């Protein structure tokens, strides 16, 4: 049975597209046929993060309007043949998406794919609403920072009242927390909310902590999802996220600070 995953946050710039690209690649690399859809009509960026921006011919809105078939619009990833990207339209306004149109495309994708990852735009407008409406699972991407945590909580309220599962009284969407841009050093200094703090406030199941990492910018510069950078901390953290999502029990990493020479000399413990 296919599962629809929405990657959402409310707030912008927290790492939704980075996460969507990473988890879609992670699932596909595990052998599951996966599609990742950009819901940010007018401001598409998933194609850039996935490194397929020059291969976009048709987009999501073309398919909804019947100007192209789904197969024409889906772009097969250059490194993984189990992964397909459905880019957003760059020219139309966000009203181009309709609930009926999105529902039809998702139904069609469900016949062929195991996982469908919906990369939500920021905000709570139509694009964000449609990205989460049909979801089975929600990855809430949160930064350890006040406005992001607040917006995440707002998003949780929307998931539990405005999604299809909520409207039809089905089993609610499974919600998972992904804490990104985490800096254990700053947490230790009392400058940043800790994993425990954020979990206490949001009370969500923690799927993983992605450390603040240079590798994320490096990955986006080159258009390769950061999960493919297996040596990097962020890449490994996303690999853990996938393993946990698929049912493996892995201890959380990257929560404690790395001890440099200075820390070893003066850090105590």
């Amino acid at each position, binding site marked *: 049975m296919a599962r629809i995953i929405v990657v959402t946050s409310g707030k912008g710039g927290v790492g939704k597209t980075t996460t969507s690209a990473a988890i879609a690649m992670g699932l596909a690399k595990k052998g599951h046929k996966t599609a990742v859809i950009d819901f940010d009509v007018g401001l598409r960026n998933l194609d850039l993060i996935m490194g397929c921006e020059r291969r976009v011919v048709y987009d999501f809105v073309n398919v909804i309007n019947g100007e192209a078939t789904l197969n024409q619009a889906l772009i097969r990833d250059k490194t993984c043949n189990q992964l397909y990207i459905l880019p957003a339209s760059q020219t139309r306004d966000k009203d181009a998406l309709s609930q009926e149109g999105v529902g039809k495309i998702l139904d069609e994708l469900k016949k062929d794919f195991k996982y469908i990852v919906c990369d939500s735009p920021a905000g709570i407008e139509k694009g964000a609403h449609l990205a989460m409406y049909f979801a089975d699972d929600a990855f809430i991407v949160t930064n350890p*920072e*006040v406005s992001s*945590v*607040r917006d995440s*909580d*707002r998003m949780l*309220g929307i998931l539990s*009242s405005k999604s299809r599962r909520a409207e039809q009284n089905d089993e609610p969407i499974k919600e998972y927390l992904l804490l990104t841009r985490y800096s254990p050093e700053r*947490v*230790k*200094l*009392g*400058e*940043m*909310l*800790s994993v425990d*703090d954020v979990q*206490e*406030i*949001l009370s969500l199941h923690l799927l993983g902590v992605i450390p603040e990492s240079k590798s994320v910018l490096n990955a986006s510069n080159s258009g390769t999802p950061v999960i493919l950078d297996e040596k990097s901390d962020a890449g490994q953290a996303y690999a853990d996220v996938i393993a946990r999502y698929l049912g493996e029990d892995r201890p959380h990493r990257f929560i404690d600070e790395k001890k440099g020479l200075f820390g070893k000399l*003066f*850090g*105590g413990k």
Partner: protein
Amino acid sequence: MSLLDYFRTSKASSASLAKERLQILVAHERSSRNQPSYLPQLQKELLEVIRKYVNVEQDAISVNFEQNDTQETLELNIVLPEHQTKIS
């Protein structure tokens, strides 16, 4: 405890302040999230009725909706101006 820890703890932590503010805010926003959608309209109409009899300010009335496992409570609070006869 190392020397470094001493300096760390002597500073008031901004993270704990953030946590405290968030806990209050999130609790407040969650409680208003579950309120029935007719509340604002109810508040407006109640105010109109009360103003027929007493000259109260726009913000003199507050309507609170609370929900726990067993019951829902609608709390209505009207502040009457001073030097005015009370409505019994």
